[in-house]
């Protein structure tokens, strides 16, 4: 049964809501010991996928397993998976402490765990206030406190940065890294690569319900080499001259510039001088992960 690996596996997962195909054959796995980022633009199916993993939504096809079994078949689900999901609510009149005490009873952990998680997320001072008066960030912290109550092996977080102040975000980053460093698994969704870039080791990128990239963050960085952009008098002659020095990855950009990969501006400048080609502009192209992410996902806002 439960293999205690802390691994989450998603196999050919699809979900159709009437005419909308929210998730379309997604396959990936979340490994223990690393933070896996789950990225995609708005409406790409992140929330739907995460909710399918924890059995809140029944997949149309495919399946999702935690520790080798469907979530609902885990004997102690909340001790295996802690989840912070979008639109997770609280009764406005119930205090945070009482909410957590009810959750602790459901999980079967002693009441002392409540004080512990309240301290962890920094809500101790506000624990006896009705949640109705909580700010967005405070609710997010409370949701995280519930997720941590069972001391789970796997954390699943849907856009946990929403509403957190910069201090809270920095704290969350450090917390997730430390959590994974203990050999546990973290799956965290976001629609901004920049938000999770410093936190995640592994990436799963989805767009329109389909998986576009899956692998280490370093691999995504490496998939696009840095280029030197050159504006010059005679692009064809410069390209020839560069090719003779072994630099072969040269593109012509739409604006007439050359994009030269696998070299640096010094080399390009030297070759141009030797070939007698006048240089009007020389720039290093930044590897913009966010740009790469846009290209991968071609979000709904892209014109054309």
């Amino acid at each position: 049964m439960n293999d205690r690996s802390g691994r989450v596996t998603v196999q050919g997962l699809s979900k159709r809501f009437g005419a909308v195909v929210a998730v379309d054959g997604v396959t990936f796995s979340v490994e223990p010991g690393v933070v896996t980022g789950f990225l995609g633009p708005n409406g790409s199916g992140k929330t739907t996928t995460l909710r399918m993993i924890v059995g809140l939504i029944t997949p149309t096809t495919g399946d999702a397993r935690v520790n080798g079994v469907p979530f609902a078949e885990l004997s102690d689900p909340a001790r295996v998976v802690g989840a912070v999901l979008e639109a997770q609510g609280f009764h406005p009149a119930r205090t945070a402490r009482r909410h957590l005490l009810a959750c602790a009873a459901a999980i079967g952990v002693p009441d002392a765990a409540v004080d512990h998680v309240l301290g962890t997320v920094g809500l101790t001072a506000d624990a006896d206030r009705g949640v109705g008066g909580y700010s967005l960030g405070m609710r997010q912290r409370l949701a995280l406190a519930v997720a941590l109550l069972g001391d789970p092996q796997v954390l699943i977080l849907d856009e946990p940065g929403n509403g957190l102040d910069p201090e809270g975000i920095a704290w969350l980053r450090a917390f997730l890294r430390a959590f994974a460093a203990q050999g546990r698994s973290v799956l965290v969704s976001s629609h901004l690569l920049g938000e999770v870039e410093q936190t995640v080791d592994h990436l799963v990128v989805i767009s329109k319900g389909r998986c576009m990239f899956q692998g280490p963050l370093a691999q995504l960085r490496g998939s696009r080499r840095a280029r030197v952009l050159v504006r010059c008098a005679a692009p064809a002659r410069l390209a020839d001259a560069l090719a003779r020095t072994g630099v072969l990855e040269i593109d012509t950009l739409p604006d007439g510039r050359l994009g030269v990969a696998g070299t640096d501006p010094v080399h390009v400048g030297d070759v141009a001088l030797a070939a007698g080609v006048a240089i009007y502009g020389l720039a290093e192209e930044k590897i913009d992960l966010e740009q790469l992410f846009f290209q991968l996902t071609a979000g709904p806002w892209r014109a054309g």
Partner: protein
Amino acid sequence: MGRLLRAELRKVSSTKLWWGLLVPAVVLSIIINVFGGLFTAAIPDDGGRLPLLLGSLAYTLGLTAVFAACYGVVATAGEFRHRTVTTTYLLGPRRWQVQLAAMGVSAVVGAGYGAVVALVGVLAGVAGQAGSAFPSVGALVAVTAIGMVVSALWAALGAALGVVVGNQVGGLVGVLVYLLLGELLISALLNSAASVTLQRLTSYLPGNAGDIAIYDIPARVLAGPQIGSRLVETLAGVTAPPPWWGALLVLAVWTAAVGATGWVVGSRRDVT
């Protein structure tokens, strides 16, 4: 299952819902039992020898069941309204167990409503109906116990209904319109039918079944074993009512049926 029951109890005790619905039920109980004579005017009382309190108490307990039903609906449908159901199902993914726990705890609350309302009703009756005889303790205990069971069943049924509907306003309006209007209309239609079988069906509607169970013993005490059954027919608007235990059984079957529907509907629902 024990954990889920404890969690459910903690949820109940941490909001004001349970007493928010108990207070109006108690107020109604005081009014009805102080002025009990008005509500039991149908029964000819020769010289204050009849324990009319039994009648007004039964009427009160019948109304209390409506509050119990509302309580049950809000207890479970409120989870959808406040979106706490996501957390509830994350901690208890076997949804039928969660529903069973909610039905069980709601039943306890419903029984509590019955007990408190009966106690207050007796006190109010002693104060207000000094002219009439005091009922026997056995009859009082019997009516109270049956009223508690009816309220417990209605609260559990309401909790199951809340899961079926998954919408607090829809569930509340549905249960109130049905109990206060719908079942009266259906009963009237059935009673006016030519077929005796159809007329008898009135006793098997859930609201009527609860009323029959509650009115059975007071009617016998007040009107005697012969016409007691006729009095129940008049009060509950039914034809050929079963005895109180049969009526309880009918209500229990309805509760189980709605519970089973909640099981099926609830376990298939996508919580988005």
